[in-house]
């Protein structure tokens, strides 16, 4: 086991990347970059990490360089945030379609305009259709551990997909907390470096990124779909093994609260912790309540969501991103509704949009959400609001 040290979220992630013994880091070094890559540059400079740092002129190039290095067989890492993530958008599709096991950290933040450097899930949600495996941590220990889990899942020969691990900007990236560090030896025994994918090699030439004409393109996409499905099983195996080795158990979803709840809030990231703290404080008063954390967002863990939400009267989904004009302007709410409907679960749902652009989701806001749920739990679905409830906004 490692030792427990006080670290910021950014440093916690950087230490995990170091322990994963990456070969290439490519990054745009200026805003909206995080100090993750700054810390990694420091590790390389003082000889603690033997890796190539490629400083590029934009995030589009950062991910392009990552694609090239991964295709050459390197273990590759990059990180960004906000506008930087959406500037990678084009290449994110290419990374996943080329089946390159790149790992990237998203320090989740709002998107401009107006200019805002603070936390929400706008960037994370904006890239959730790019074919990457995506997970989000609730605390910085988890953000640290997720990097090691990510390499194991990404490089599994049955998966071979890029993995994005996210942590909330500021509320986590800039928060100091105790981290049980995974040392290099343990990281590499859990996620050994082995070339499980086709790589560019002059002695055994292959073409990566060839034309896929109508005769072939569809079959590639079908395979990519299977790989994503497979990653769900590999995720489960990996977290089981992780729990055995490191003693910390993660789930694709995690439930906290009453054993037989009537009302449940579904949330992601650090706000899950705020809801846990709220529930612990009010426990006994508003007892039949709980929170379901979604850790794995892609592939969306439908089976477990059904398991936890079956029998619940009403589910409130906390979204920290907004898609104006969508049938469900909260993207997480949209996924939950689709899952429940598909599996014939008749729990009612309510969409909450809260905490955009760094506004904290406070106990007061969480209290408002639970009271709304309690108030509406016995009403027929036809009487529920059809639009999201914006919690904590000035109208």
């Amino acid at each position, binding site marked *: 086991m490692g030792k*427990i*040290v*006080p670290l910021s979220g950014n440093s916690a992630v950087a230490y995990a990347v170091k322990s994963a013994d990456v070969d290439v880091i490519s990054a745009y070094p200026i805003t909206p970059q995080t100090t993750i890559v700054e810390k990694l540059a420091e590790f390389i400079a003082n000889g603690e990490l033997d890796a190539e740092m490629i400083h590029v002129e934009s995030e589009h190039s950062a991910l392009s360089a990552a694609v090239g290095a991964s295709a050459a067989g390197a273990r590759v890492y990059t990180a960004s945030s906000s506008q930087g993530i959406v500037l990678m958008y084009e290449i994110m599709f290419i990374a996943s379609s080329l089946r390159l096991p790149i790992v990237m950290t998203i320090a989740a933040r709002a998107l401009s305009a107006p200019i805002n*450097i*603070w936390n929400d899930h706008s960037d994370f949600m904006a890239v959730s259709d790019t074919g990457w495996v995506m997970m989000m941590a609730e605390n910085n220990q988890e953000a640290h551990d997720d990097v090691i889990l990510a390499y194991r899942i990404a490089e599994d020969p049955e998966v071979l997909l890029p993995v994005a691990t996210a942590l909330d900007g*500021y*509320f*986590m990236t*800039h*928060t*100091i*907390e*105790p981290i049980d560090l995974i040392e290099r030896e343990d990281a590499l025994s859990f996620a050994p470096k082995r070339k499980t994918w086709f790589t560019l090699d002059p002695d055994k030439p292959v073409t990566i990124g060839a034309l896929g004409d109508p005769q072939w393109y569809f079959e590639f996409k079908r395979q990519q779909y299977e790989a994503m499905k497979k990653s769900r099983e590999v995720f489960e195996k990996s977290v089981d093994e992780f729990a055995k080795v490191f003693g910390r158990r993660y789930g694709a979803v995690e439930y906290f609260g009453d054993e037989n709840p009537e009302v449940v809030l579904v949330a992601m990231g*650090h706000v899950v*912790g*705020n809801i*846990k*703290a709220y529930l*612990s404080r009010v426990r006994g008063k508003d007892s039949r309540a709980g929170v379901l954390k979604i850790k794995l967002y892609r592939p969306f863990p439908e089976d477990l969501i059904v398991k936890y939400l079956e029998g619940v009267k009403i589910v409130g989904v906390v979204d920290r991103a907004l898609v104006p004009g969508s049938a469900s302007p909260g993207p997480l709410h949209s996924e939950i509704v689709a899952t429940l409907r598909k599996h014939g679960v008749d729990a009612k749902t309510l969409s909450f949009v809260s905490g955009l652009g*760094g506004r*904290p*989701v*406070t*106990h007061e806001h969480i209290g408002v959400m639970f009271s709304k749920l309690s108030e509406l739990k016995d009403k027929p679905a036809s009487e529920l609001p059809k639009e999201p409830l914006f919690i904590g906004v000035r109208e």
Partner: protein
Amino acid sequence: MFEIRWHGRGGMGAVTAADITASAAIKAGFYALAFPEFGAERRGAPVTAYTRIDKEIIYDRTPITNPDVVVVLDPFMVSSPRVLAGLKEGGYLIANTTKEPSEILDQIADLRRLRITVATVDATSIAMSVFKLPIVNTAMIGALVAATNIIPLSNVVEVVRERFPERLAEANIHLINESYKLLKVMRP
């Protein structure tokens, strides 16, 4: 759970104070979180930072609204309602000021009613004598430890030694010890 709220201005080191205190608490075996009230960083602008310390894992990352302790780095902020907002009954007000605790108690009526322990130290003078700059954060950590005993001073010193180059670390440790010695405390 023990919650500390730090108030200062950009350049005084409130964020670092919150961080060092949490780091020392973690070294002492506690679970702790430290985070700033995130804003665009500007020298001179009001800065708030938070430290939470507990024996158990801390889930809550909301800003601290009912602190056990308020530490004020800027002498001109001591009587500001925003600074004192939500301070818990029986809590602590620890201020960088030339004033005596009794003067602060006379100045702010609520403090006696809420049975607040008031502690004062002229951290600006101590910091100026060493740095020629009003970087008072480490001195105020010394004051916090002297007033509350929440964490051992030795863990604070350990963190400072790890965080700063040797000369700067020793200067800061001097500040911490001076402030620890000179702090005036008035308990209810």
